């Protein structure tokens, strides 16, 4: 996939991705309105669907709220690349089929607005100048979940994911 990068710093927690004051919302189309609102109130206005969120360490730390993964997915975020992720957010994103990848060093190499290319299978991220950064490719188990658009689709078809 290819997309425009939207760059954030370290420790973007789930309260910044999706503020607690909107947690009573359940409809995805309402949840997406508040994407990253506590980190950048202008984000939902300036974000173009298909964009790639790039962040530093510990993206999605904090609360278990699935709203954080839902809001990014529904807003049209194509993928999230970060130095590391909060683990519950990581699971929630995979379960919803929102691609994400750990890419060490990405925060300093990508600038806001860069067009970047991401290959989830190989874990390679290509920068506008052609430079390549090697991320940590997802395991086949997780890629399988993402390929199916998340665990919901797998369960719908009666499939139960089994360990590697």
């Amino acid at each position, binding site marked *: 996939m290819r997309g425009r990068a939207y760059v954030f710093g370290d420790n973007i927690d789930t309260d910044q991705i999706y503020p607690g004051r909107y947690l009573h919302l359940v409809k995805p189309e309402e949840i997406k309105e508040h994407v990253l609102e506590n980190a950048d109130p202008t984000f939902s206005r300036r974000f173009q669907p298909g964009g790639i969120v790039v962040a530093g360490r510990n993206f999605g*730390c904090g609360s278990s709220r699935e709203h954080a993964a839902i809001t990014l997915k529904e807003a049209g975020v194509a993928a999230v690349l970060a130095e590391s992720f909060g683990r519950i957010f990581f699971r*929630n994103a995979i379960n919803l089929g929102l691609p994400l990848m750990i890419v060490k060093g990405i925060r300093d190499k990508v600038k806001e607005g860069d067009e970047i290319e991401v290959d989830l299978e190989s874990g390679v991220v290509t920068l506008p100048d052609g430079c390549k950064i090697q991320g940590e490719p997802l395991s086949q188990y997780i890629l399988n979940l993402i390929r199916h658009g998340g665990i919901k689709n797998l369960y719908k078809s009666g499939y139960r*994911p089994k360990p590697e």
Partner: protein
Amino acid sequence: MHALEKILAAHAGLSEVTAGQIVTCRVDTAGVNDLYLQVLRSFEEMGGEKVRNPDRVVFFFDHYVPAPTIGAAENHKEMREFCRKQGIKNLFDIDAGVCHQILAEKGFSRPGELIVVTDSHTTTHGVFGAFGTGVGATDLATILISGEIWLRVPPVIKIVFDGRLKPYVSAKDMVLYALGKLGADIATYKAVEYAGEAVDRCSVSERMVLGNMAVEMGAKTSYIQPNQEVLDYVRSRTQKPFTVYTTDPDYKYEAEYHFDVSDLEPVVAAPSSVDNLREVAEVEGTHVDQVFVGSCTGGRLEDLRIVARVLKNKRVAEGTRLIFSPATREILAEGLREGIVQDLLAAGAVMIPPGCGPCLGTHQGLLAPGEVAITTTNRNFPGRMGSPKAQIYLASPLTCAVAALTGHITHPGRYIE
């Protein structure tokens, strides 16, 4: 193997597991709180019809109690109907309190159990010798359907607190200190075991603070090898049998960190990250508009006792608000029996019913832009307790109590003997 690995192995039907392995585990207790109507939505979307083990499922109404909006009331209503339809008897309604304290009080937190709740602070239950971990809505819905969850076996890091704490320094100070020194992502994808003399001396309540705050280091779960006091507590809460696992002597921790806490002074996590460590002395004199005492981190009976001891026969400072919430109905009842709730009310504090509200800024005492709060809770992210332009300091119940008394952040040493 580590005790936590033995728990996962037992629940996966395997004789051995190792860090990094993905295993499918039978879940003993699956909990859903009232932030998570999405669990029901995901359950339906995935074609769920009948909950696999209704006796192993617990619903908690704690984040929005009593319902502050019509939307929240609708969510409660739909969850009550779901429980009735599915034969789920363990519904802790708006009168009960905060889920993690209820799990302990009602005997769900037992050694050897696998506890999965739609709440990140489920790491708390590791201090009962269980494997407790938080998940989102869809993960929990898969448990409702299958009774199982996929988990990656975490490596374990060990944090050792040596020495004895000063009387005005608490478990909360100790864990904030470790967080500040090690960073908010030191334990991401990992488990945190606590050990050492200062941990051995912790009460059940203080141990719960350590386990609870492990998630603020990114941890998947926490662990403290249960001592006699913990086992006695569990036995006083349930007749159900349990298995205490122990870690093999040859188990290799991924990392070990040692802190001597004998000379530790009271600390805070300053705005706006949990690892922004400062000594109280460094921020002394900062005016506070609001003090909150409550939550799964700092709303237990011991916490209320500490705050009441500081404020008994005194007044909350002019220009400062003190809000407190006993974590559960049982704590509220005991607080009334001991007279500490009355002491706090007489001092000018405002009590709100058992629940999570202010801790995550859903309702009951939000902060205005520019306001400063100090709180016994667990997170100080921008916007966590109201306006993103408010500032939040995390501290021990004692440090919070003294701030309520003086109206500004104050070293608590002078206020206790």
